[in-house]
């Protein structure tokens, strides 16, 4: 029954409006940044262009980007009691589970492509188009490594793939937390603001304590600090994971009070 409902939810989610939104997010956001940096910056390697392309607006808005993929449609259903009328057709827990899984799946796919699409374009297509002028490296120059560059030793494709998966996992985590907050908090504005506030307040706090390697922003988009051991990125991630599991358990126990 869950599988069938997931198929229904996928069909319902794939509206022209949503497809256009997702396409805009995947293509336009990196494209705008790419064209901004294509002139006036000095690059030596394509991977630097990729790292600069996914910096800027995407890290600043990351939780909002993750939440906008699917949750507005859930909010629409919630606001006007639509979910109550699904109840004679499908068990509530199946319906909500399918919504949560579809939110995770679509957010994961969009945030993955948001990173992987520019990676593929810059690493494998752009060099044929010549849109970026690369300066030549000499022996005295050193390009600073960033976190996740550790994977470059396995090849550029592996680096791009692993990094994009990491961004997607974080996107899923933020949007899943927001989904569960929507389910349990009566004010949707507060529910959707909390993940965003967490992200930025913890960035501020980690900067204040001079531990930027643990900031949510720098562990997902680690291009503004020097390379850190990979375990550092797991610190805010594990914290969010614990929050997520706690919210899940609370949601299961709080079924009678869900905002539906």
């Amino acid at each position, binding site marked *: 029954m869950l599988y069938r409902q997931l198929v229904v939810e996928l*069909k319902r989610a794939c509206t022209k409006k949503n497809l256009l939104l997702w396409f805009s997010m995947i293509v336009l956001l990196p494209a705008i940044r790419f064209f901004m940096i294509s002139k006036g910056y000095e690059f030596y390697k394509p991977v630097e262009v990729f790292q600069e392309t996914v910096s800027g607006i995407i890290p600043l808005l990351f939780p909002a980007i993750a939440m906008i993929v699917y949750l507005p449609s859930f909010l629409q259903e919630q606001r006007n009691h639509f979910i109550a009328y699904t109840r004679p057709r499908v*068990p509530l827990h199946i319906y909500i589970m399918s919504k949560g899984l579809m939110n995770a799946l679509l957010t994961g796919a969009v945030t993955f492509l948001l990173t992987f699409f520019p990676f593929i374009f810059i690493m494998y297509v752009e060099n044929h188009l010549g849109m970026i002028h690369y300066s030549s490296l000499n022996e005295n120059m050193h390009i600073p490594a960033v976190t996740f560059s550790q994977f470059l030793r396995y090849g550029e494709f592996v680096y791009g793939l692993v990094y994009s998966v990491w961004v997607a996992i974080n996107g899923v985590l933020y949007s899943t937390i927001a989904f569960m907050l929507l389910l349990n908090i009566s004010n949707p504005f507060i529910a959707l603001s909390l993940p965003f506030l967490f992200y930025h307040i913890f960035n501020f706090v980690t900067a204040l304590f001079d531990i930027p390697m643990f900031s949510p922003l720098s562990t997902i988009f680690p291009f503004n600090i020097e390379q850190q051991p990979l375990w550092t990125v797991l610190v805010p991630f594990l914290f969010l994971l614990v929050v997520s599991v706690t919210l899940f358990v609370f949601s299961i126990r709080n079924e009678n009070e869900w905002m539906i």
Partner: protein
Amino acid sequence: MTTIISLRNVSKSYKGITLFENINLDIEKGQIYGIVGPNGSGKSVLFKMICGFVFPDEGTIVVDGIEIGRSKRFPHNIGVIIDRPGYIANKTGFQNLKELAMIRGEISDEKIIQTMEQVGLQPNAKQKVKHYSLGMKQKLAIAQAIMEDQQILVLDEPFNALDAESVDIIRRLLLSFKHEGRTILLTSHHQEDIDILCDHVFRINRYQLEPVVPMKH
């Protein structure tokens, strides 16, 4: 006559307020039942228990031979209006019904169109539901409750916000469903609806369901 819904020794409290104490009720197939009572007397909670949306504190509810409880959350073939119309505001009436119909996947677009026309909505209108009047939203709620040919209809205030002509259309529709053998439970604050439609009427009084002699026209 076949009993299609049976409540046995059902008790229910909601947020510390006792609503029902040991009520018993048998609903027969192909009949229209009216439940009346003042605001807050528990009409909606009674309907929610029959639909499996909430469970009784004590007692059993059997619908179409199956006990509603943890193992069977809701009866299969039931159409419901409870509390207020539910909809997705930025979609059209047709899109709303289509999205609900997709869940079971039992009916075609033509059936949705036919149902919308039956209740007095224009299926091809591009108007989004957020621009619907209250009466149109109510018709949409009725449409979703009947579009899959549900054999049991549980309708809480189905005539809310409807104009006189629409009330007449829906009354005739419900009577035709009764003649088809469908079972209908409804509430209404208008005695005329109860008088015209209902074969049996129960009043909620002091946590009990008391039969009232219907004034059928």
